[in-house]
C-alpha cells in the first residue's frame, strides 16, 4: 500500500516538475527571442552577433528547466524511493 502511494506521488511530482519547467522555459525563451528578433530587425548588420548571443542566452536560461526534466526522469525511471 505504501509502495503504491510512493509511486503515485512520484509520478504526480514528476508531471508537475516537467510541466512547470516547460512553462518557465517557454516564457523565458520567448522573452529573449522576441527581444533578439527586434534587435535584428533594427540592425540587420548585427544579425550574427545577436544570433550568437541569443543562442547562448537560451542555453543558459534552459539550464534549470533541463535540471527539472532530469529530476522528473529520475523520479519516473530510476526512483530512489521505490524499493
Amino acid at each position, binding site marked *: 500500500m505504501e509502495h503504491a502511494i510512493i509511486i503515485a506521488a512520484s509520478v504526480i511530482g514528476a508531471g508537475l516538475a516537467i510541466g512547470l519547467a516547460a512553462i518557465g522555459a517557454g516564457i523565458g525563451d520567448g522573452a529573449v527571442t522576441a527581444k533578439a528578433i527586434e534587435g535584428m530587425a533594427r540592425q540587420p548588420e548585427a544579425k550574427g552577433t545577436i544570433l550568437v548571443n541569443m*543562442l*547562448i542566452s537560451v*542555453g543558459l536560461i534552459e*539550464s534549470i528547466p*533541463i535540471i527539472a*526534466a*532530469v529530476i522528473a*526522469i529520475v523520479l519516473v*525511471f*530510476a526512483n530512489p524511493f521505490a524499493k
Partner: protein
Amino acid sequence: MEHEIGSHQLAHFAGLTFHLDTLMMTWLTMAIIIVFAVLATRNLKIKPQGWQNFLEMVVGALLEQIDANMGPRGRKLAPLVITLFLFLAVGNELGLIPGMKSPTSDLNTTLGLALMIVIIVHILGIMNKGPVRYIKHFFEPYVPFVIINIIEELAKPITLSFRLFGNILAGEILLLILGMLVPYVVPTAWLAFSVFVGIVQAFIFTMLSISYLSNSLADDHH
C-alpha cells in the same frame, strides 16, 4: 526495456569502480578527434581544402571569440578552449548513433570538465594577479559581497556540469522513449534537433569557460 536509464557497465580496478561504458566512449571520442586532427594537418596548404578547411573554420571562429573576450593574453589558453569544444562537440554527437551513448551523458564526465575549468580559473587567477589581490577581489565592492561571490563560485561548476549533463541525458532518454512510442517519424525529427542541441551545448560550455577564464587573466589597467 533492456537499457536501464542511468545504469552503467561497471569495472573494478585498484579498489575503485569505473563506468566502463563512459570510459570507452570517451576513448572513442579521443580517437576520433586525433584522427580528424591528423587528417586535417597533413599536407597543410595555404589555400585550405577538405578536412583542413573544416577544421580551420572551427578554429577561426573560436579564436575570434577568444580574442573578443579574453584580449591579447587569451591566446595562451586557446589550445585548452579549442580542445574542450572539439571534445564536447564530438562527444555530444556520438550518443545519437544507435547503440552508443555520449560520454557527456554521465555526470562524472561533465563534472570533471567543469571542475577542471573552475580549478584552472582559480589557480591562474592566483598566479596572474597574486594571491593578495585575488582574494581581495572577492570582497569588492563592499565586504558583505563576499557571500554572494562565494555562492557564485560554488554555483559555477554545478550549473556548468548539470546543464550539459541534463541536456544530453534528457535528449538520449527522449530518443529511446519516442522510439518506443512513435517509431520512425518523430524520433527522426528529435534526432535532427539533438544534433543542433549537441553543438549548441558544446558552444555554451566553451563560451562560459572563456568568460570565466577571462576573469583570471591579468588586467593591464588599474
